[in-house]
């Protein structure tokens, strides 16, 4: 299990290093804009949601607390 993890990590890391550092700039930019396309819901809704307005951030904090409270009530019975 450990050996498999090491081999898989080294393989993935070499692929990533190759595409980031060795390949030409235009090719790697095209490849990595695939990431933007796969995670499109995130980049369309969540990223612009960080709008910089302080009141929105405070609202997130209170809604987060209410969510944690309801989840704790469900878990602890």
């Amino acid at each position: 299990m450990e050996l498999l993890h090491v081999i898989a990590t080294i393989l993935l890391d070499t692929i990533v290093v190759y595409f980031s550092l060795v390949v030409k700039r235009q090719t790697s930019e095209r490849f990595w804009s695939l990431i933007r396309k796969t995670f499109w819901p995130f980049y369309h809704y969540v990223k612009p949601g960080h709008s910089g307005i302080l009141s929105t951030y405070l609202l997130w904090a209170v809604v987060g607390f209410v969510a944690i409270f309801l989840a704790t009530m469900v878990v602890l019975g």
Partner: protein
Amino acid sequence: MIEIPPIMAIILPLFGAFLTPIVAFVSWRFGVRRQVCGWFAVAIIVATFAIVASMIPAVLGEKILVYEFGRSPPLGINLVVDGLSLFMALMIAGIGSLVAIYSITHMQHHTRLDLYYTLLLLIITGMMGVVVTGDIFNLYVFLEITCISAYVLVAFERRWESIEAGIKYMIIGSLGTSFILLGITLTYGTAGSLNIADLMGKFAAVTSGAEPVPLVMVLIPALFVAGFCVKAAIVPFHAWLADAHPAAPSPISALLSGVVVSIGMYGILRVVYMMLGALTIGPILAVLGLVSVLVGVLMAFGQHDFKRMLAYHTISQQGYVLLGVGMGTAIGIQGALFHMLNISIIQALNFMCAGAVLYRAKTRNFDELGGLRKSMPVTAILFLVGAFSISGTPLFNAYASKSAIYAASASQPLYLAIAILADVLTMIFFLRAFRLVFLGTRPRHLLSVKEAPMRMLFPMCILAVLCIVLGVLPRLGFNIVGTAQEAVTNPSNYVGRVLGGV
């Protein structure tokens, strides 16, 4: 001279903070160079590290040090140093001293340096107080000392960016500490005591019982989790971090990203995990951690600012720590503690590299940087070490801790898949940053950039060496956190020592 180390670890930086303006004034009257208060601060923090290190033999020998103010517990306030406290105190004092050495060179062109070093010593005092205290209201007081010093340090340069980041940090942070204060209020009303060891005994019966718990016992963990997650920058309480850490001066960014954020995680471990016996809300913590991992890594993608990208990675890695804590098994806690140590070292290294680039090239924007590897080769290599470390490459330190967290979360394959995906994405984004800053062609306005000064490279080299040493010898890392993990999973030792007395 008081010879008990826990109280000295708090008093020494506190008195140092009060003496720093006097030292600065005296040195100004006698016409000495301006940096005397800087070296004074470095001396104080290194002395604090020596005091904390002197407690290592006692605590490793399974003894827990207790220092009492006045009456014995549970009536008085006491300071308790067990494995977890010693581990965090070593982290704070170590990274604090390296940051102080770094800031002597980096901040030398600023005015009001006596204010800066006073605040640096105060923030170290506050953090020492948080990890060493055994009384929950004392924890709140020292947490406020830490946070107020952090708010002022973020807004230190008084540009528009620093002030906006400072006020956002302050308002969101104050909401967090209000949650913690309300939690302490309800705890006192329910249990009648403020001593953490006493509360552990009183709450142990409630949360492990089979009958449904009263409403207040649901409210207390929720308030504490929400309050400490604001300090630890877990999604959805994370919005202040991406503004505050870039806007602070670079040595303070390194300190904030490394250690101050870990204070929130220490609060979750000590109060929620140990005191409330909250093994049953582990899944909630694991889900919060997982969401932080994903949101942190994905938000880091479209950033044009070097330090802002690093700040989002702090959110992501703290999510890994919370994932390990939430899983609840011994290997999970061990991985989480080791990962906390690792990311404090790695993020301090990364922010110091970004600070070195900022110091020489005067810009943080990726669009204006490029091709710096010929004139800043040492900084480039150190940033490469940081980039490979944070993404969990074998032979660097985060590999062992991330493996432990993966092993702990292997019981839920969805968590494992998302954690590994975020790991790969972290490496992608860091190497992209390395390529944008250091490889490529150099723009014309950066032609005269030189290497960072030797005194700035020295703490960065120490951190990089620590990265590689902990990576090549992961046994050493797990031995370091072994006592801390023992302390977290067996709170009965803590309770017996504090209340029983020896």
